[in-house]
């Protein structure tokens, strides 16, 4: 019971203090899980980050589930995940309430108007990071041109053209590139 409570409190803190999402949460999780409470070893934690990067879903939710499973089984995973989302839930619900109450005011609209182009830029930046990762398997500063991956480039262009021409869902494009790409890559590897 004491362990469950520790898990819950640790992940409430992860949820509450990881502003900015994604990688911002990693040092925080490390502090809670490895240093403060010794729930995972550093090697296990490194494994956790590797898995979290390879699999879908937010890093803090992935970590919460992983740590909970390792320490206290499925019940632990539920408790950690719940702790991690609790602050988000309360804070965002409050913000959503105020947003929908005040968003029609002209002053609020002006401020949001200046903010929206920036959000477009943030989305574009995230997209370019993933594209570079797909094409070179690294980030922009470490690109090696000879490492260029033609298969991923072809999948990217193909996916983009299909998206522009037809009304297909995001999921079918991602799943489609996954299936087609895996088969082609295995054929290439076999040759």
């Amino acid at each position, binding site marked *: 019971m004491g362990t469950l409570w520790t898990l819950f409190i640790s992940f409430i803190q992860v*949820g509450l203090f*990881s502003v900015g*999402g*994604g990688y911002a949460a990693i040092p925080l999780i490390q502090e809670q899980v490895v240093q403060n409470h010794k729930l995972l070893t550093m090697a296990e934690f490194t494994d956790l980050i590797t*898995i*979290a990067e390879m*699999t*879908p*879903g*937010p890093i803090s*939710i992935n970590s919460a*589930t*992983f740590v909970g499973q390792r320490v206290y089984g499925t019940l632990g*995973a539920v408790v950690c995940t719940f702790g991690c*989302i609790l*602050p*988000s839930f309360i804070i*965002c*619900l409050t*913000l*959503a*309430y105020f*947003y*929908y109450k005040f968003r029609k005011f002209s002053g609020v609209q*002006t401020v*949001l*108007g*200046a*903010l*929206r*182009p*920036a*959000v*477009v*830029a943030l*989305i*574009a930046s*995230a997209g370019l*990071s*993933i*594209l570079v990762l*797909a094409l070179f*398997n690294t980030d*922009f500063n470490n690109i090696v041109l000879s490492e260029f991956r033609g*298969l991923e480039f072809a*999948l*990217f262009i193909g996916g*983009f053209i299909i*998206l522009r021409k037809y009304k297909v869902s*995001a*999921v079918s*494009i*991602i799943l489609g*590139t*996954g299936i*087609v*790409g*895996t088969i082609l*890559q*295995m054929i290439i590897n076999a040759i």
Partner: protein
Amino acid sequence: MKKNRLWKLFISTLTLSAFTFGGGFVIVSLYKKKFVEELNWLDEDEMLDISAIAQSSPGPIPVNASVILGYRIHGILGSIVAVFGTIIPPFVIISLISIFYEEFKSNHVIAIALQVMRAGVAAVILDVVVNLGKNVIKTKKVLYIIVMIVAFIATYFFHLGAMYTIFFCIGIGLITVLLDYRKEKKNGNSMDSVH
């Protein structure tokens, strides 16, 4: 009808969450495609506002975005449904992996699939960004276009944190409001003096 909507919300957040590789803004573009372009549940500006709020609040961005999106579709119940949809896929996937970790790490097919799927994710984001960018340019407001370009360069090339970009733009917005207000006041005064 309402029940139908909740179910659709749950299924949509569930499937999108299962395919969200990469940072928080990936899910935002998937949400934009699903809820704005396909289902017409909310407009584009709203989706961008939700993204900004989700980014600036503590906690994982996809969860934050789901809370606000769910609230918009069906109040607090909608929030709960959307959050469940969002956390179930990573919960199940990670639970399975934590049990079969060694097998997972050494499986080549999984490694290949995860690598090639990034190309698909990048294509989806580019598609969404083209639509969004076009609309910013269509406003023909030079300030907005400059904000977009500068924010992109600052974020991608200089690794400026998204929070700083957002707060900086709120600052620009507030200054614009003040300038508008002063202009109006001035116009109002000159009108008064006529009378």
